[in-house]
């Protein structure tokens, strides 16, 4: 056999191997996103269409009312889009507050030496190792005493300080070189100005990573709102509670449930698609700590 045909064979073999790997990976990815692919046309299916035998991929009649009913108030007096709006508002406000509080605390820990720091820092960290349910069930008593229960604030304040985020920002701040601060200090900048002019502009990426996590965390929360919102549900109900209620209230209206689910997951998906590169980099970082 001459040399060129050996090379050709090796090349074909290489292409075939890579092709097999690509095919395998595509199969895995397809299985994982299949539920979403199936849900998209199903959101327009009517009562008889959805579980028809044989199963249909596309609806026989496109039922737009599955979406329009979501704008109307349901039997409990709340509407889906109201829950959507309230949850969005809570998510945005809570994320802004979360970033402000935790970045300041991280700056405090990264650049200041003060009495008791060696005790306070581990105590802060300890809170991130405690399971949610343990804190949440007694927090109810605290928020009741503070008259926060059944208000918007109960959804925002308890998660405002987050030890994990403080830790994340502190690690990042510790890596910022001194020379930048030196220059700012020579210009006569004080502590707060140094924070605003040196640290804040450098922190855009960690802010996106933490901010997206915080927003999606609020968007997805179900247990805490269920514990803390016992009255005024029609005003304060969160989007996850609404989707859950809808899915259990009328089992025949699955087209409607799918429509509501799709609109609900669109929010984190849009956020993710904007910032996906930084979020994936953020996972890499969590392995480095």
């Amino acid at each position, binding site marked *: 056999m001459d040399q060129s045909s050996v090379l050709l064979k090796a090349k074909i073999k290489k292409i075939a191997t890579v092709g097999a790997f*690509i095919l395998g990976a595509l199969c*895995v*990815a397809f299985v*994982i996103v299949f*539920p979403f692919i*199936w*849900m998209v046309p*199903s959101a327009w299916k009517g009562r008889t269409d959805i*579980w028809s035998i044989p*199963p249909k991929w596309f609806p026989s009649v496109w039922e737009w009312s599955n979406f329009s009913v979501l704008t109307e108030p349901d039997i409990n007096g709340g509407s889906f889009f109201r829950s959507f709006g309230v949850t969005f508002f809570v998510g945005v406000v809570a994320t802004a507050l979360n970033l402000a*509080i935790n970045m300041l*605390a991280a700056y*405090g820990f990264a650049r*200041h*030496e*003060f009495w008791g720091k060696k005790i*306070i820092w581990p105590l802060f960290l*300890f*809170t991130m*190792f*405690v*399971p*949610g*349910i*343990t*804190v*949440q*069930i007694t*927090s109810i008593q*605290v928020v009741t005493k*503070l008259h926060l229960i059944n208000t918007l604030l109960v959804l925002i*304040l308890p998660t405002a*300080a987050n*030890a994990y985020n403080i830790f994340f920002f502190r*690690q*990042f701040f*510790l*890596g*910022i070189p*001194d020379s930048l601060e*030196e220059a700012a200090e020579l210009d006569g900048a004080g502590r707060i100005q140094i924070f605003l002019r040196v640290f804040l502009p450098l922190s855009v*990426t*960690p802010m996106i990573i933490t901010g997206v996590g915080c927003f999606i965390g609020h968007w*997805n929360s*179900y*247990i805490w709102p269920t514990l803390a919102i016992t009255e005024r549900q029609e005003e304060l109900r969160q989007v*996850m509670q609404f*989707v*859950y209620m809808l899915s259990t209230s009328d089992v025949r209206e699955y087209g409607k449930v799918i429509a509501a*689910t799709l609109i609900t*997951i669109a929010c*984190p*998906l849009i956020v993710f698609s904007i910032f996906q590169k*930084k*979020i994936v980099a953020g*996972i890499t*970082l969590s*392995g*480095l*700590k």
Partner: protein
Amino acid sequence: MEKELIQFHRDADKKRKKFVYRNALWGYLFILPAMIFLVTFSFTPLFMSFVRSFQDFQGTFVGFNNFKFILQTPTFIKSIGNVLILSAAVVILQTLFSFLMAHLILKLPPKVGNAIKIAIYIPNMMSGVITSVIFNLFLRYNRGFFDSLMLHFNMDPIYFAQDGIWPFICIIVPTLWLGFGYNTILMLSGRLSIPKEYYEAAKIDGAGAFRAMMSITIPNMSNYFILMLVNLITGNLQMLEIPMFITGGGPNESTITPCMYLFQSFNDVMRDRNITIAGSFLVMIPITLLNVIAFTCIRSKRSEDS
């Protein structure tokens, strides 16, 4: 961008003294807001639950009675066994699958690999509620995607949430689906952190692929494995929403989990809340211990490395 960030984090632990302000009142001021929130919404509840787990509903001190009571509640005991089985299955399968998937992605051309990474990461953004709603569409008895396929092919429909081993699978599969992308990316970054020269040296020494995996890949990724295993174990021991909404704890309480039991008994006004709180303390102890040990272990290894 990614590389710069990683460099920042690598430098972070190196000793640095120059720009640290000593005895600064400012330090207290900066951490004050966070401190107020943590004291109000973390330490006060924790302290109160500690106190209340030794009291009866009228506030009299009862010693360890609440703990004794909860440990004699058959459902709670059963829930501990259930969560151990479910977690073991999820932890083992998730570690295996994500490790293999990371190696598969490594073999792909970079652009395809990135697209696959993003596709499998999408479920990670779903909540327990959404995951359950989606999987219930597939698993519902007699209706549902799978059963309508079965009926179409003239087979008996399966009651996934109730029959035989199916309830466990109905919880394990959605849980794996939810975390698969995140763990795969974590494993992938762990594998990429190992210098290529190690593998080249092994090849020269005549080591095969399996040998290279056992003596290079796995030991060098130990930090990533610890991180992933601890996250998976502590996360799954707190399993709550998926079993609650898919099987509802059934059949015969065989899929009820401790957190689900606590959540439900807390919402049940007929039950003594202090007993529930004592139960939540019992759940907290192993999880917190595991977390603290792993965190200290990873931190001290890292400072050795640098």
